[in-house]
């Protein structure tokens, strides 16, 4: 093995870490809004991702049967649809359940666990118990070869780009828009925000729904990597919570950094041991660091 081969392997390994980073960040981002900002323990977050993934699958099926010529272009629109569907379901869930539970954060856990069970059964009844994957457009397949021996998968690149877009969008929206201002005010002090004329109920509902919508987009991105089944959401939920907690719940930048750190630890240790042991090692490290630094990497110092 010569030097350029080594470099190629290193680059591809690094890229594997990067795409894991993108996946973790996408999972964590919606939760960083719902759990980190609002303090709602949304155990149904994984199911919102599944809603997004199924939206892509359904869009692909519909496009395939109605307008096969449109196949190369349907994907971006379907991602929008994934957002919309998850947004609507999130809106309803907030309206029916969550708004009664803001004063009892740990109870949101139980209620949303019920929601997650219900959604799983809905998927099983209406879409089917089998794992499905959508027909992806041609341009998402294959790999990009900048030079001999170095293959970068296009779907990985796509997920990375989507992540960058969504993250940037959320960061800008939260810190530069009126909505972001209202969200931050409501989160910091609900009563005071209400007194200053912010409709906190509306803000909460919109924020929760947007968080769910982002989860839907994350699910949409996952369809380029793997297949989707009724219970795939539950595979991601702990990772998502760990990403958010590890980064420091109230800090979006912390979520980005923690997703990067976790992804790199995982993919580097996978080089030396089996996948499951790498996962054990990574998770144990996170738990240990959280014990030493319970507020996460980027703790926001506020007196409440």
């Amino acid at each position, binding site marked *: 093995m010569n030097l350029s081969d080594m470099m190629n392997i290193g680059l591809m390994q690094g890229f594997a870490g990067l795409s894991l980073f993108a996946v973790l960040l996408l999972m964590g981002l919606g939760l960083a809004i719902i759990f980190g900002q609002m303090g709602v323990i949304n155990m149904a977050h994984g199911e919102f991702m599944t809603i997004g993934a199924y939206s892509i699958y359904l869009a692909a099926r519909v496009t395939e049967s109605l307008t096969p010529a449109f196949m190369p272009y349907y994907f971006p629109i379907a991602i929008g649809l994934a957002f919309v569907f998850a947004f609507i379901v999130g809106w309803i869930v907030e309206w029916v359940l969550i708004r009664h*539970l803001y004063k009892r954060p740990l109870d949101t856990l139980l209620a949303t666990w019920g929601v997650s069970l219900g959604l799983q059964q809905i998927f099983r009844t209406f879409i089917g118990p089998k794992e499905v994957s959508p027909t992806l457009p041609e341009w998402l397949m294959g790999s990009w070869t900048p030079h001999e021996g170095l293959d970068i998968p296009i779907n990985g690149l796509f997920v990375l780009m989507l992540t960058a877009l969504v993250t940037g969008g959320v960061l800008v929206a939260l810190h530069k828009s009126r909505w972001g201002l209202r969200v931050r005010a409501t989160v910091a002090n609900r009563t005071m925000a209400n007194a200053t004329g912010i409709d906190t109920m509306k803000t909460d509902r919109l924020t929760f729904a947007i968080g769910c919508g982002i989860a839907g987009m994350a699910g949409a991105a996952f369809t380029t990597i793997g297949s989707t089944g009724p219970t795939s959401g539950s595979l991601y939920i702990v990772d998502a919570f760990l990403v958010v907690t590890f980064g420091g719940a109230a800090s979006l930048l912390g979520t980005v950094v923690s997703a990067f750190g976790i992804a790199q630890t995982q993919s580097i240790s996978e080089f030396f041991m089996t996948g499951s042991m790498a996962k054990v090692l990574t998770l144990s490290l996170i738990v240990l660091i959280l014990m030493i630094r319970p507020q996460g990497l980027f703790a926001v110092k506020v007196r409440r």
Partner: protein
Amino acid sequence: MNFIKASILRYQLGSLLLLVLLLAVVLPLSLDIFRLNLVGKYLTYAFVAVGLVMVWGYGGVLSLGQGVFFGIGGYAMAMFLKLEASDPITTKIQSTPGIPDFMDWNQITELPALWQPFKSLPLSLALVVLAPMALAWLVSFAMFKRRVGGVYFAIITQAVALICTVLIIGQQGYTGGVNGMTDLKTMLGWDTRTDSAKYILYYVCVGLLVLSILLCRWVQTSKLGTLLLAMRDKEDRVRFSGYDVSNFKVFTFCLAAGLSGIGGAMFALQVGFMSPSFVGIVPSIEMVIFCAVGGRMSLVGAVYGALLVNAGKTLFSESFPDLWLFLMAGLFIGVTMAFPMGLAGLWDEKIRPWWKGRRQALREAAVKPPTSTATAPAPASLSPSPSPEPQLPDGVGSQRA
């Protein structure tokens, strides 16, 4: 006589007696051995739920990793039973006889050091309780000393549950992997699969459960219990009074872990196998649900919760295999939204005051001549003192460090 009456009231033994009557007399007489064995299986979860009442209801800290402690207890018992089931004679077709079959499949030729203690029954029984407690101490000590609680603690315990599941599944040669430990037949030569053995194990399980409830009740009525409640509601005030809050929390958490371990061991004995599917996140959350349905402040309620949810699960999934998840979802959401204190709360807040009011009304009607009811003082339904608003142990105060 008065002393007995006083202590029955003090430790709320009335409801416990009713439970014992149900578990020890009514159910064994009315169910066949297959169903009774199922009830015994549900009761092993009740150990966890009782522990959760202590940690969550009284301590104000929610743990999402109780399945781990249940699993450790269960695996400790299962490892002892497995070693007994794989003696050199029954395993002589293996390439190395005398070790469990899954080790043989994974090319392990010698019993690992981890398994050595489980050759002796007393050591295994001790580990059933002590190993979960040790892990619980390890997880909770650092966290409670640093005043981490509430949501963060819940998530870290959840991560611990995930770590344990991945570890157990990954280390197939040592743990049996996804299949877990199966074919557990005898305990010291005593066949645990016969009907009489099942009856005996059921009664042992009921007895241990009652002992655990009494132990927890004793803790609750002691000064420690008072402090736990005080701490749950105003942690800082207890701390400023000079108490080291974290030690109490660590103690309760370890107590709950030990109880869960006993539950796990009884599970392995009664069901005859142990697998990672009882360790992970989903079973751990379900155990919290048992506790929530029964009532997070009531030890006896937690047992009913475990029985009801599991019986419901079995019956629903038998008769409506497509709908039972919807029913479970409805149960979780409904209980959380409508009865935050669970069934026991429903009893304490709604039925008992109504019953008391009714009794008082009857008594007043009996004392006073019926003609004077028009001038009677306040209607009886208003007379019982309004019960104070239930305090929800959400750990809201404790999650802010």
